[in-house]
């Protein structure tokens, strides 16, 4: 405080007295408007989540009360019981966890290896660059155009309504992203690091595992979170490829509560709240890497 005061005093004594005040006012205004904007953004992000959480805890009477009951209602866990014990949401949750987890592991493993190769080896005729671009180009069309071909392929492979089909599709969906992210991280590391490791007697794979990967952990964490979110939230392809209770993921299961005759808001919200938790937990677990990974 005293420091700032001193600085202002110096500024005042150096410049004409008139200019000191408006400058200070302007910085204060800038700071306040920053807080106002940030608060608005937080409010916009949190309100729907808050509404979902309250809906999941409200009886059906409270849900449709007018004016809406923001705070004053009697909480009930009936919808949670309904979703996870009477209905199959527990099963959807397990399916989602399995699919998202496995596909993330596959995409990150395969993508990281591919990215390392593309980052470090020059192929004849700039093939490495062409390959990278081609990989990226597979993300340039909307995934929906692949839905029908994928459905036919999975049908012929007898993989419809299986977790395997979703793991394969989500891995393919995430691979380009992993390759491009990790390629960028690898490129930032000096080549001499793995060269030193190889001169020291390690194989290239050993150098990758012992020297390079520990150095790109933040990037790896950030990439994995993205993959997990994409797989976790994916709806369209899951809807096309899975129809049975045993193979359905949470997003498909939740959407299924919008029926011809009624919309099960309470059940959907309860499932939605539970669906948030794994991603939230994972993101928090890797948070200390995440900030560095995203800003790299």
């Amino acid at each position, binding site marked *: 405080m005293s420091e700032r005061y001193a600085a202002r005093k110096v500024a005042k004594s150096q410049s004409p007295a008139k200019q000191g005040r408006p400058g200070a006012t302007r910085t204060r205004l800038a700071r306040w408007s920053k807080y106002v904007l940030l608060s608005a953004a937080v409010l916009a992000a949190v309100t729907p989540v808050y509404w979902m959480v309250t809906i999941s805890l409200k009886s059906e009477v409270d849900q449709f009360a007018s004016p809406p009951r923001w705070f004053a209602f009697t909480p009930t866990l009936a919808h949670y019981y309904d979703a996870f014990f009477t209905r199959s949401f527990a099963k959807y949750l397990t399916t989602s966890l399995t699919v998202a987890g496995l596909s993330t592991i596959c995409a990150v493993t395969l993508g990281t290896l591919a990215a390392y190769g593309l980052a470090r080896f020059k192929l004849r005729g700039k093939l490495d660059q062409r390959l990278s671009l081609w990989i990226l180009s597979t993300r340039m069309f909307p995934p929906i155009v692949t839905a029908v071909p994928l459905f036919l392929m999975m049908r012929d492979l007898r993989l419809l309504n299986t977790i395997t089909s979703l793991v394969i599709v989500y891995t393919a969906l995430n691979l380009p992203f992993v390759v491009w992210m990790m390629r960028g991280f690898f490129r930032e590391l*000096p080549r*001499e*690091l793995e*060269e*030193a*490791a*190889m*001169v*020291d*007697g*390690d*194989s290239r794979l*050993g150098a990758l595992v*012992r*020297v390079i990967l*520990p*150095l790109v952990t933040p990037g790896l964490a950030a990439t994995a979170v993205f993959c997990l979110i994409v797989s976790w939230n994916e709806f369209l392809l899951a809807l096309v490829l899975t129809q049975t209770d045993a193979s359905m993921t949470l997003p498909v299961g939740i959407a299924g509560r919008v029926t011809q005759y009624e919309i099960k808001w309470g059940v959907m919200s309860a499932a939605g709240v539970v669906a948030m938790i794994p991603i939230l937990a994972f993101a928090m677990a890797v948070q200390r890497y995440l900030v560095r990974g995203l800003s790299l």
Partner: protein
Amino acid sequence: MDVRFENVSKTFGKSAVVDQLNLASDDGELVVLLGPSGCGKTTTLRMLAGLEDATSGDIFIGDERVNDIPTQNRDIAMVFQNYALYPHMTIAQNIAYPLRVRKIARDEINRRVNRVAEMLEIGALLERRPRELSGGERQRVALARAIIREPRVYLMDEPLSNLDAKLRVQMRGELKRLQHDLGTTTIYVTHDQAEAMTLAHRVAVMRAGKLQQFDTPMNIYNRPANRFVAEFVGSPSMNFIEGRVDHSSYKFASDALTLDLDESHLARLSGRDRVTLGIRPEHIEVSTADHPGWLAATVYVTELMGNETFVFLRVGGEKIIARASAEFRAEFESRVFVKIQMERTDFFDSKTGLRI
């Protein structure tokens, strides 16, 4: 173990980075590859390390042809210009890495890490990480990681170039002593001729992928194979004067000056007309007083180095540099007199640049 390059070439696309290199070190020798940037010296070292493939030719370590042996099996150790320490490991883990990947017992590793750390006076740093260390300390860690094993060859790629001047001179001496004590063949790459002269048993001067001369520092300095070597080695650089030989009047004449030649010069220069005369700055005497037979010159600038003075002169149209004592004083544009010690001159073919 000795190292041999036999007709080794490396091309990137159409340009030859290393061109038909033939070079053989003795066992235990310290060979310095010297040359300006882009001369192929680093590529040569990297081919020996297996980090680049030779396009053609054979590379031997001892009697073993290593062209097709992957880096990790070549049994070498290398110090990189930027040290390439592993940032996520402690200093002890960095030094231990070559032993760890060879699955040597933990006790043995600890013992050897401590011994090497003591040798290089970095024992107090073992638990720190590379980013907490100064440049000189990192340099020592890189050295420690290289010498913890007893490899067949040490490779050093400009290991001192990231250090400040004072530390560089100190480490230069320590490196020389270390190499002597270890007695292991060392291939050392640098563009700094002072490092090359002080460290090497033999210096290989390279230019544009071609070996120019491979000889002892003394011979490189006193009997340079060509004009490039003569110019590259020595500071300040050798003076060159283009001119003609007049065999009948025993004269060497350039546009700006005329010098007397003797019988031995003429014998060497027989049948030649246009030649380049080379003379090192320390073989030119400068005086403010005139002596018979000396040449008149104008002082362009003088640089007092403390123990000596570099005098930049104009003799006629030629610019030459002379080395004078620290006591020498002369004003800008003042008139002085110089004597070129004709018995110390070198002559180079004006076209090929080769020493005559």
